[in-house]
């Protein structure tokens, strides 16, 4: 008898609970487009926010809801992921050129002598709100690694030799978090370039030439020699600083040798031959 009462009472409690749960699930059901889930499946799932939406699910919702794929791009997944997304949704995804984060400061320990020793919190933003930094350059990298902390892909690290951050081209997804994290706006997203070949001015110092040069041996002094050399109008000089427009640059490499401070960097090019011009032409052809 005791057993029977126990079984019945428990059974009743269970049944009431089940009914309640069923009613609640019907009443509070939220419809979600199943495609949102499908899109989210193919996304990288890093929730980095590089697309401009709150996480991957936000991006997936946006993709499903919008009529065209204009302006919707997952820089992390790149073209492959976007192709998958467009197959699921049956909408054309635009192709975006692969980009990569580029550190525009070459003020390593040798080039940029220290004028004081920072003893506060090891954080670039804190230091930046305090003062110009440990060297005479008020534009250069602090080297405390706010960009490293923020990177979700382990793609940027401080090189202990130079004290500067270095980007791993293969791991970098051009999500732009480091660009936002840098209080000095040193990091820029630039076209990755064929075979990761890029030419850029690795300095953002807007001081007058003399001041900049005194602070850092590798500083751009705004002399304008590179701009004169450039045949494609890609280099502009503004506020004592040269800037190479990556959309116009043909990677001819003519600007780098004329720079008196070596502020223009070239990455992943073969070593320069005697006849630099030949290589340059070759490269130009490749880009075309």
């Amino acid at each position, binding site marked *: 008898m005791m057993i029977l009462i126990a079984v019945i009472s428990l059974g009743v409690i269970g049944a009431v609970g089940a009914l309640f749960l069923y009613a609640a699930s019907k009443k509070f059901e939220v419809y979600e487009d199943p495609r949102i889930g499908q899109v989210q499946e193919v996304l990288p799932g890093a929730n980095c926010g590089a697309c401009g939406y709150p996480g991957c699910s936000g991006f997936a919702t946006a993709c499903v809801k919008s009529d065209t794929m204009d302006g919707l791009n997952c820089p992390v997944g790149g073209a492959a992921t976007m192709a998958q997304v467009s197959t699921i949704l049956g909408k054309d995804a635009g192709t975006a050129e692969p980009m990569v984060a580029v550190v525009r400061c070459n003020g390593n320990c040798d080039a940029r002598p*220290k*004028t*004081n*020793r*920072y*003893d*506060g*919190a090891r954080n670039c933003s*804190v230091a930046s709100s*305090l*003062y110009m930094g*440990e060297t005479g350059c008020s534009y250069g990298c602090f080297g405390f690694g706010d960009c490293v902390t923020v990177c979700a892909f382990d793609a940027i690290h401080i090189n202990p030799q130079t004290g500067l951050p270095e980007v791993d081209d293969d791991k970098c997804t051009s999500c732009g978090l480091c660009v936002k994290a840098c209080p000095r706006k040193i990091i820029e997203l630039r076209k990755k370039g064929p075979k990761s070949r890029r030419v850029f001015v690795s300095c953002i110092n807007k001081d007058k030439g003399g001041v900049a040069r005194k602070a850092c041996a590798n500083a751009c002094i705004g002399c304008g020699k590179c701009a004169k050399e450039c045949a494609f109008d890609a280099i502009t000089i503004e506020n004592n600083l040269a800037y190479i427009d990556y959309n116009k640059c043909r990677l001819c490499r003519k600007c780098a040798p004329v720079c008196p401070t070596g502020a223009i960097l070239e990455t992943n090019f073969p070593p320069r031959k005697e006849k630099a011009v030949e290589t340059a032409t070759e490269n130009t052809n490749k880009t075309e």
Partner: protein
Amino acid sequence: MNLYVSPSPHIHSGDSISKNMYGVLIALIPAFLVSLYFFGLGALVVTLVSVASCLLFEFLIQKFLMKKEPTLWDGSAILTGVLLAFNLPSNLPVWIIVIGALVAIGIGKMSFGGLGNNIFNPALVGRIFLLISFPAQMTTWPVPEVMSMNYTDVETGATILTLIKDGTGAELPSYVQMLTGDRAGSLGEVGAIALVLGLLFMLWRKIITWHIPVSILATVAAFTGIMYAVDPTQYANPLVHLLSGGLLLGAIFMATDYVTSPLSKAGMIVYGIGIGLLTSVIRLWGSYPEGMSFAIFIMNAFTPLINSYIKPKHFGGN
């Protein structure tokens, strides 16, 4: 000459974690002397074993599991060891103490990420683990025997709270015995005067504020006082409650643990009242004679909630 540069302020009080930890240890000295006097060798052995094994586990875990520089001498592991020992009977076998230390440091502290990140007071985690795992050994209390040279082989008896709970009407120790510490119990909890001396020292050195201990003691006194007024034949008077069991040790040294207690003063008082209420309820109506450990343990779990709802008094109102 390269000057140092940092944001303000440019001077520091000179206070440090280890200063605070050693300050608490100094405050524990009177209670330790009392237990040495009443429990003799046992008190010494239990404390030494507990401290040594806490240090050992702290070192091993930091060095080999967390792969970082061990911080043995910041005093926190020593303090955990002493507090654990103070919560144990002085005739507890060595191997049980070592297990307690392992649980306290390994599970109570290091599994959360080390000092500052733990949710529960590590010594309490160790103590409660032992209480549940070894109920027999953990509740046989040696009877005080002045300067005893015996360790495990001692005469045992019941604590005040057990006597009350059993309701046999056996005679309780006198108030003088309660104040000096001449009663059965965990080795560090017996000497009421010595514990209060420790409290005064910590208040003077500004290691803790009065809020937690006072709110716990006041709550227990008020609650048990009301029950005593209702039915003096069934319930013990509030003074007995204040002076018995681990109430003073818990209120002064265990509940005030920095890491696991709330940040704001109002929060500390809520936390103290919670501990006081839970302790009283367990003591009066629970199946255990003493509820201090459980009460602190439960309120530790509420600390994050208290912190997010009870903020410090804000300048200019809200």
